[in-house]
């Protein structure tokens, strides 16, 4: 029996085991929207298309599954672009369905027409315009496969309105066969052996691990290998949660706002083992001096990440989990080289410990309520087990520093693109994936206003995300740069016309709280974490608190401004 394109779309989603769709309607979606009325796929209708893509992104990051969104043509599609670019930079598997004007109108400047395939070409892993209903199921199959395989990323599928109306056979392909796309999962044995030889002779090794640990599920292998050889570990922002935040071997995050110990370890190391990390400028500081004493082993599934910013000595293209497992096997089999490795690097261990002791993350406790204290209490009260999203800026860096993440996929943040307004819709998506989990968005008073409309979505679907607004009446991170590099001229960054966030929450039908003093923090947070409603907590913090340590842009990592 023939089905419409819209029905084929729904059947294809079922074949991909997709049970949740983040969406927003428009003229071009109507065929699909109508067909979904009798479907059991859960449909979360957001308030802005950017929110739909961020929510599907949060869903994907929290669950490890592909996030799916559907928006209309023209402005619906262009509103989704920031969400798509965010997922692309952080390698998150999404399939974004945009609806398009009918094929015969494409190119005519039709009402609500935008060349969304063209617009998103540089920020998608791949994209499709479906021109014929007979291609629809194959394209959907390929889109899901491409999104989640290799280095994951967003794939866009543009469906014209006449294609969703047209009749066609539904035959879902069993297999994908794309001759031009064959990702490499298995690391080259010779390269791995070379790497292990180098490791065995190193005296100051450090693991530098990123989001690849999370996406490949390599956390356990990393922990085992690090523990077995007592190798200290630093994470990028994207890698947090991939190694337990309270582990004795953990140095903390590296980079611009990294810990003293992590940045010194990179500076002094004789071997850096980079796993699923891409030597981003915020992590490396001045590239010429990044690990300048060290040999570098780089494990990554994407060959373009290797030797892009920094020339490495031993490249290994492959899946992080697969490669780390093989490395671990070599260590376990080979008593010779690694027999007393831990004791051979004891001095190094002593050095890194001393850096940790001498310069821990800290902040002044006098005067006004400190945002870092709030994060510390959130961490303590949730035992480091909540799913935490962030917005972008100081709120993000303080969360990365002071919340000790224990497990992969519990820290959800826009790392590469640095998208303000990401955290709240992403939190909504994470809450959809885990309805019983405690989901917290650590926000700033600036960022939260960039997707504040999603409060209506949270209330409508009873998604009890807790938004903790570190309200400093500033766009704090930019203000901090103005303080340090522009003689405190706080141009544009003073947010002196913010709304009353408690009243905003209440107006939307959510709960609102305010914290003004340190002694209120625990009491209010405990209450907030117990309630079952979407909640805003407006926390009035020290307006001019800054994030430290800080490596000025372009400086080497060892040149840290401490508190």
């Amino acid at each position, binding site marked *: 029996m023939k089905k419409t394109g819209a029905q084929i779309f729904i059947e294809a989603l079922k074949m991909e085991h997709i049970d949740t769709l983040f969406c927003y309607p428009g003229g071009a979606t109507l065929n699909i929207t109508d067909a979904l009325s009798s479907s059991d796929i859960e449909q979360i209708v957001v308030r802005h298309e950017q929110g739909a893509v961020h929510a599907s992104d949060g869903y994907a990051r929290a669950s490890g599954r592909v996030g799916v969104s559907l928006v209309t043509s023209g402005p619906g599609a262009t509103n989704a672009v920031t969400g798509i670019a965010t997922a692309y930079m952080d390698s998150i598997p999404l399939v974004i369905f945009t609806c398009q004007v009918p094929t015969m109108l494409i190119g005519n400047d039709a009402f609500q027409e935008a060349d969304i395939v063209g617009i998103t*070409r540089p920020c998608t892993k791949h994209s499709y315009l479906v021109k014929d209903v007979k291609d629809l199921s194959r394209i959907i199959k390929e889109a899901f496969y491409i999104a989640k395989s290799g280095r994951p990323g967003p794939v866009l599928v543009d469906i014209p309105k006449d294609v969703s109306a047209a009749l066609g056979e539904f035959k879902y392909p069993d297999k994908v066969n794309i001759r031009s*796309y064959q990702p*490499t999962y298995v690391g*080259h*044995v010779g390269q791995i052996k070379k790497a292990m030889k180098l490791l065995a002779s190193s005296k100051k090794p450090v693991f530098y691990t990123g989001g690849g640990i999370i996406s490949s599920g390599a956390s356990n292998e990393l922990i085992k290998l690090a523990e077995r050889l007592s190798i200290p570990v630093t994470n990028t922002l994207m890698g947090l949660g991939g190694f337990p935040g309270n582990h004795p071997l953990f140095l903390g995050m590296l980079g611009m706002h990294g810990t003293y110990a992590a940045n010194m370890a990179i500076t002094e190391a004789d071997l850096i083992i980079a796993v699923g990390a891409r030597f981003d400028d915020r992590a490396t500081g001045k590239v010429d001096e990044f690990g300048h004493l060290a040999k570098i082993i780089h494990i990554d599934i*994407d*060959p373009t990440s290797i030797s892009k910013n920094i020339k490495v000595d031993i*490249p290994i293209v492959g899946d992080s989990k697969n490669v780390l497992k093989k490395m671990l096997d070599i260590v376990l089999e080979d008593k010779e080289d690694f027999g007393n490795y831990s004791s051979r690097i004891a001095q190094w261990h002593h050095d890194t410990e001393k850096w940790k002791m001498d310069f821990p993350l800290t902040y002044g406790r006098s005067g006004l309520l400190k945002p870092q204290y709030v994060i510390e209490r959130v961490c303590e009260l949730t035992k480091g087990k909540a799913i935490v999203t962030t917005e972008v800026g100081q709120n993000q860096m303080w969360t990365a520093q002071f919340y000790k993440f224990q497990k992969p996929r519990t820290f959800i943040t826009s790392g590469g693109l640095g998208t303000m307004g990401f955290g709240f819709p992403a939190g909504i998506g994470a809450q959809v994936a885990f309805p019983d989990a405690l989901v917290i968005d650590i926000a700033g008073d600036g960022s939260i206003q960039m997707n504040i409309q999603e409060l209506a979505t949270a209330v409508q679907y009873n998604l009890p995300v807790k938004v903790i607004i570190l309200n400093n009446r500033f766009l704090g991170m930019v203000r901090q740069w103005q303080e340090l590099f522009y003689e405190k001229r706080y141009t544009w960054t003073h947010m002196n016309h913010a709304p009353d966030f408690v009243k905003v929450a209440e107006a939307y039908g959510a709960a609102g709280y305010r914290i003004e003093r340190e002694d209120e923090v625990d009491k209010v947070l405990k209450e907030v974490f117990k309630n079952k409603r979407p909640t805003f907590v407006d926390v009035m913090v020290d307006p001019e608190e800054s994030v430290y340590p800080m490596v000025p842009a372009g400086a080497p990592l060892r040149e840290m401004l401490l508190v």
Partner: protein
Amino acid sequence: MRHTISVLVENEFGVLSRVAGLFSGRGFNIESLCVAESLDPTISTMTIVTSGNDAIIEQVLKQLNKLINVIKVVDFKDVDYVSREMVLVKVNAEERTREEILRMTEIFRGKVIDVSPKTYTVMITGDEGKISAFLTLIKPLGIKELVRTGPIAMMRGDKTIKMREKHSKGGEDG
């Protein structure tokens, strides 16, 4: 350093803009680009001439490979290859220069493919050296218009570009 690169791509709409967009988006240099269907009608061959230091060329090759529609990328740097370009030149053909143009065209084994009372349109094919030599000689006679295809290239001897190996061989970074 200049590199001539062959890129085998799926013969589908939008692929050219993916490749061109990659070069512009990442600030890679593109000196010429030539594209048409290959022996297999489902595949197009692009010949791209680009320049950059080793690190940049390495990124160019990897980024091209990363595009989903790209089947195979070959840098002709390390292989023996032949390369040819075609140029059409519209030259002022006055009475006193007509003979000279025809003589040059013959020496360079070109062809006059169009004639008007005041111009000859000459077609020359060859490698870069030959074409620039011809243009240097013909320039004083007055070139009205010039169109070049950019080079296309192929391996010498019985070697051909093998199709199967898009996947990097597992360990090397290429």
